């Protein structure tokens, strides 16, 4: 059954996420990419039959387009034109900051705003991890587990995530991450090995794409776990990683 509202909603969310991810793009590049993606989405949508116009097919179209981080990654090389633009932008920022500085001093002096109060208010709105699977520090996870999930205390921005990690202690992924319809739980399809420990970061200092629709990043969290060995016994995890996980998750 046709549900154009669903379609419009997920398209606008995806485009907003791409827009937010393209921090280093010039205005022209950003406009062009968003325009191209809009046309692309339009064409994919018109290829769907009436029966295919479902939430699952819409999700598939977005999955085929790929995660929003890809756009930023593929644009990370600075072109000479962009350097020129950035030179002017520097002057603009200096003037803007000077202006903001004057306004801030004035605001502070009359006692309307306090920087720490704003920071505190924003901090209180940050999404936090309320549940993960596997649970952090579990050392007997079934090696046949095919999905890692993280649940937040509030809806998150769709198609935006920062599963952080790499190397032999980051799980082999078998597909694209996806959110549930409520956008509170994100799932990462994986393939695990028995008797092996894994570190899966949920955001970090540098990567903050687990965020709300208002671009408030989730507090970092670490899912450190180990799979049971072939005999079902727990697997050791290095003590320094356990300490680091406790430190990250207690913040």
């Amino acid at each position, binding site marked *: 059954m046709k549900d154009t509202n669903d379609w419009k909603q997920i398209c606008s969310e995806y485009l907003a996420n791409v827009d937010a991810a393209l921090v280093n*793009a010039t205005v*022209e*590049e950003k406009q*062009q990419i968003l325009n*191209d993606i809009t046309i692309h989405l339009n064409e994919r949508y018109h290829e769907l039959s009436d029966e295919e116009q479902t939430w699952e097919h819409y999700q598939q179209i977005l999955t085929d387009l*790929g995660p929003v981080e890809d756009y930023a*990654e593929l644009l990370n090389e600075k072109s000479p034109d962009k350097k020129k633009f950035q030179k002017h932008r520097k002057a603009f920022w200096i003037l803007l900051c000077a202006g903001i500085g004057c306004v801030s001093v004035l605001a502070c002096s009359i006692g309307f705003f306090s920087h720490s109060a704003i920071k505190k208010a924003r901090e209180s709105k940050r999404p936090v991890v309320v549940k993960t699977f596997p649970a952090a520090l579990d050392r007997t996870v079934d090696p046949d587990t095919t999905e890692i999930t993280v649940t937040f205390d509030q809806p998150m921005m769709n198609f935006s995530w920062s599963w952080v990690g790499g190397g032999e202690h980051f799980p*082999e992924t078998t597909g694209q991450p996806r959110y549930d319809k409520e956008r509170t739980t994100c799932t990462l399809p994986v393939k695990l090995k028995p008797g092996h420990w894994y570190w899966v970061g949920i955001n970090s200092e540098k990567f903050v794409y687990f965020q709300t629709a208002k671009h408030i990043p989730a507090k970092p969290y670490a899912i450190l776990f180990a799979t049971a060995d072939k005999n079902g016994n727990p697997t050791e995890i290095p003590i320094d990683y356990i300490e680091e996980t406790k430190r990250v998750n207690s913040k």
Partner: protein
Amino acid sequence: MNFNNWKIQLRKGLLELVVLKLLSSGQFYGYEMVKTLKTIKGFSIREGNIYPILARLKTDKLVVIEQQVSPDGPVRNSYAITEAGRLMLEKMTAHWKDVIETIDTLTAGDTK
């Protein structure tokens, strides 16, 4: 080393070459290009990957965009390669051939 990561890095580097090569054969719409690239064996890309590449190629003046209005559809962007794009493609192709030759030589050495 993770094989998947290596494949992704390789694919990124080759995307610009492949897009320019494709455009050297004529004008393409963005989505039309995605569909063509998806048919190339071993070069599976995510559909959105092409758009930042096209934006960067345009910034570098290697491609130009022409907006085309269709009476029964939306405005679409048609991409064409520029003269600078053709020169870049020649350089990239020559370098790519060198790389292939080197790898072939090394591979031949392995099988002796």
